[in-house]
């Protein structure tokens, strides 16, 4: 009984912390980008104000929208909240380890995409349809790359369980700089860029119809549902960042209560480092034409395949 309570407690704690940190991470990336580009940028806490403001506002719903439009934000948020419990973030064992693995994570991401892409089509607006169409096309190329990365990691650690994979890496510290590990990391970073809608795959700061993907699907949302979607997107971003840290930099994960503060600090440091990498990438590259995105994701798939080759051939 106490074991169940402990895992429920861990689950709530992990989800709560990720939910609280998620908007801040976005603010941090925005701020870093601004500084790199010589601007002052919005306050660090701006995403919190935005989400809170949206959650308190009335919403406007299209007369053509169906129940799909109404329930999509809830399902979208629930998918990422569940996914957040599959990744070991600061405790060495993820709260849902044993119930779901890396493939379940991919499945939950797909379910969220399904819900939002349908919602994009639901109002009849061409912007929504365009966003959905592009989202599913980009994701179709990102998903194989992601799975190949996960296979490369799983091939080494013995299975698709994420907690086992990070525990394995901790026990074999040298493997961090193995060629396969570096190649897989590069592939995963590209996938994360595409999945979080960042430059060069998408632009998170624009509503210009020629370029937008994610924002296109959200265009008809307003008020509280939009607040939920924005917060859930922040959560998606922090879950993907946690996936990178769990698979490639799992050091400092706690396995005893006393180690939790250190693990938490280590997690924050890793997030800041990743945020810096993302802001560098975004500041130093230009948005790709939509039809050039496949080349970028093709490169991710190729890197992931090379990681597999390196893993299998150079055991």
């Amino acid at each position, binding site marked *: 009984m106490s074991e169940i309570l402990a895992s429920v407690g861990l689950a709530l704690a992990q989800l709560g912390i990720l939910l609280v940190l998620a908007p801040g991470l976005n603010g941090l990336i925005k701020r870093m980008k601004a500084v790199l580009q010589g601007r002052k940028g919005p306050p660090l806490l701006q995403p919190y104000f935005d989400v809170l403001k949206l959650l308190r506002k009335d919403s406007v719903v299209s007369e053509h929208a*169906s129940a799909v439009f109404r329930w999509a934000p809830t399902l979208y948020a*629930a998918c990422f909240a569940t996914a957040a419990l599959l990744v070991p973030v600061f405790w060495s064992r993820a709260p849902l380890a044993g*119930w779901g*693995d890396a493939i379940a994570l991919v499945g939950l991401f*797909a379910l969220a995409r399904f819900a939002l892409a*349908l919602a994009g089509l639901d109002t*009849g607006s061409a912007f929504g349809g365009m966003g959905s169409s592009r989202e599913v096309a980009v994701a179709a190329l990102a998903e194989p790359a992601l799975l190949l990365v996960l296979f490369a990691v799983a091939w080494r650690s013995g299975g698709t*369980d994420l907690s086992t994979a990070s525990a394995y890496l901790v026990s074999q510290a040298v493997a961090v700089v193995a060629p396969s590990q570096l190649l897989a990391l590069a592939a995963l970073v590209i996938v994360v860029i595409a999945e979080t809608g960042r430059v060069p795959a998408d632009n998170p700061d624009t509503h210009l119809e020629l370029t937008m993907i994610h924002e296109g699907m959200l*265009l008809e949302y307003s*008020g509280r549902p939009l607040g939920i979607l924005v917060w859930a997107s922040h959560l998606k971003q922090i879950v993907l960042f946690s996936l990178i840290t769990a698979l490639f930099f799992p050091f400092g994960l706690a396995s005893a209560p006393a180690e939790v503060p250190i693990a938490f600090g280590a997690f924050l440091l890793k997030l800041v480092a990743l945020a810096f990498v993302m802001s560098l990438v975004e500041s130093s590259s230009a948005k790709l034409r939509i039809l050039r995105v496949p080349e970028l994701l093709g490169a991710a798939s190729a890197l992931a395949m090379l990681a597999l080759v390196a893993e299998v051939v150079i055991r």
Partner: protein
Amino acid sequence: MDGPLPGLVLTWQLDGLSLLFGLVVLSISAVTTVYAIGHARHHHGFPGSGLLYLLFIGAMLAVVVAGDGFTFLLAWETMSLASFGLVLTDHRRAGVREAAWSYLVMTHTATAFIVAAFLLLARTSGSLAFADWSARAPAVDPVAASIIFVLGLVGFGTKAGMIPLHVWLPRAHPVAPSHVSALMSGVMIKLGIYGLVRLSFDWLAPGPAWWGALILGLGVTSAVLGVLYALMEHDLKRLLAYHSVENIGIILIGLGASIVARSLGAQAAMTLALVAALFHVVNHATFKALLFMGAGVIDSAVGTRDLERYGGLLRRMPITGLCFLVGSAAISALPPLNGFASEWLTLQSLLALGRASDDPLTALLPLLAGGALALTGALALACFVKAFGISFLALPRSPQATEAREAGRLELAAMATLAFACVALGFGAVPVVSFIGQLVPLAAVPTAGSALGLTTAGAGRLFVPGVALVLLALAVLAAIVPRLLGPVRSHIAETWACGITLQPIHEYTATAFAKPIRLMFRDIVRPVRDVGIVHRAGTRFVASVHYRSHIAPVFERYVYLAVKDRLVAAAHVVRRAQNGSLQLYLAYVFAAMLTALLLAR
């Protein structure tokens, strides 16, 4: 040959594999029959011939319980001819007869290959009984075994709709009445898989690894190309037919992986892959039959199979819409439904196979096949966002769609049953997988069931009800927690269309939706577009623009037409020997007799 003449006594056998496929035949046909009766109530009688329909079901059942080669072929031919007759139901409509003919030609070519394989098997074992074939399988010469295997692969693969032998499937399935399409796509093509499983695991001894690698490669090709062609379709039933090609590909990936694992002696990976393939057989039968019945309901409500003329159907047909949504999510391999469970198992088996082999090449290929499977899953999701979103959401795109009415009670009951089955097979994946493991004699089930969840020899685990429960709990939280910030209202207003009133013509179309994917994969799907601009006489003003976009039929043009042209050319050569002169024919007879006498001396 010992025993009575073949055909005098029909023999039957019922083992685990027969039972599994028999259960699929019986349960799906029970549901489609309810659907067909419901359809008959509202429309002009039972669609097509009831007798042929029953004969078709009976023949499918006979195929899986046949105990010798003759009985099997008798049942197989009855099945093919009955379904040919059913495809011809609307024979007055344009294109139906051509589709039926191409089906008949393909299915008979396939049967010829199966007959050849059976004759070779009968020759080496001296009997037509399946029991003798499996008993004497180890005695078959390896080269002969490989020949038998390839013949059987072509024969059964054609029935299964494996690329490049799939061309009949997207023609014949859409034109049949929907309850027949549901049976053909959901069940009949699976009997090709049944034949392949029997051939490679029962009638022949474990073969070389290339057998499995060949099936694996064909599976990957079928899966990826099948879903790409499905995306290019906007005829709902053709789209679903191409998805059958895709899902057969997924099943073949599992089957191929298990054959490779068997030749490597990797027992755990073999069992896992075979169980994954058989589980996907069951799952695909449920959601594909569901989706075809949904397509049938929409077809009769709107009067067309063209996606571009649907739209807004969820408001008019809410229960059909919900069932179709469940089917779409299941076929897109979304948790917590059954399609996800079997794709999860297939991926795990590929990983297990990769880990089990020492040779880098055989380790890499299954892992890369896993990447292809992920691509397939993501494209299937894109396709069903299109199929559901364009048909059921937003504004009706045609007056007929505005008038659409919900289907009758029996049709809805049939669809709801299968939608429930999609959920139940996902939640109950563990007992179902252990059941399949027990039915298939090879399965020592080191894999299939722990008390907690699906688990594999490695460290991967999945407990579908647990994930679903957490998902549901968190969805409830996501719905409730924001309410703590106080009440908000939602106002109903127009969709923003840049200041004009939204018309159906402003909506994204199915063709436009698939355009990014069409362009990304243009080297594979070969889109062709004609744009024609007509100017007003004597001016530069445009009077009309026409735009047509279609996909070059690569296989038809480069494979089948090429073969047909060669055949016709060969026939011209042969015709020279036939000049109609009686004396010449007598000379042929004489020469043939002389040769026969010399040979038989």
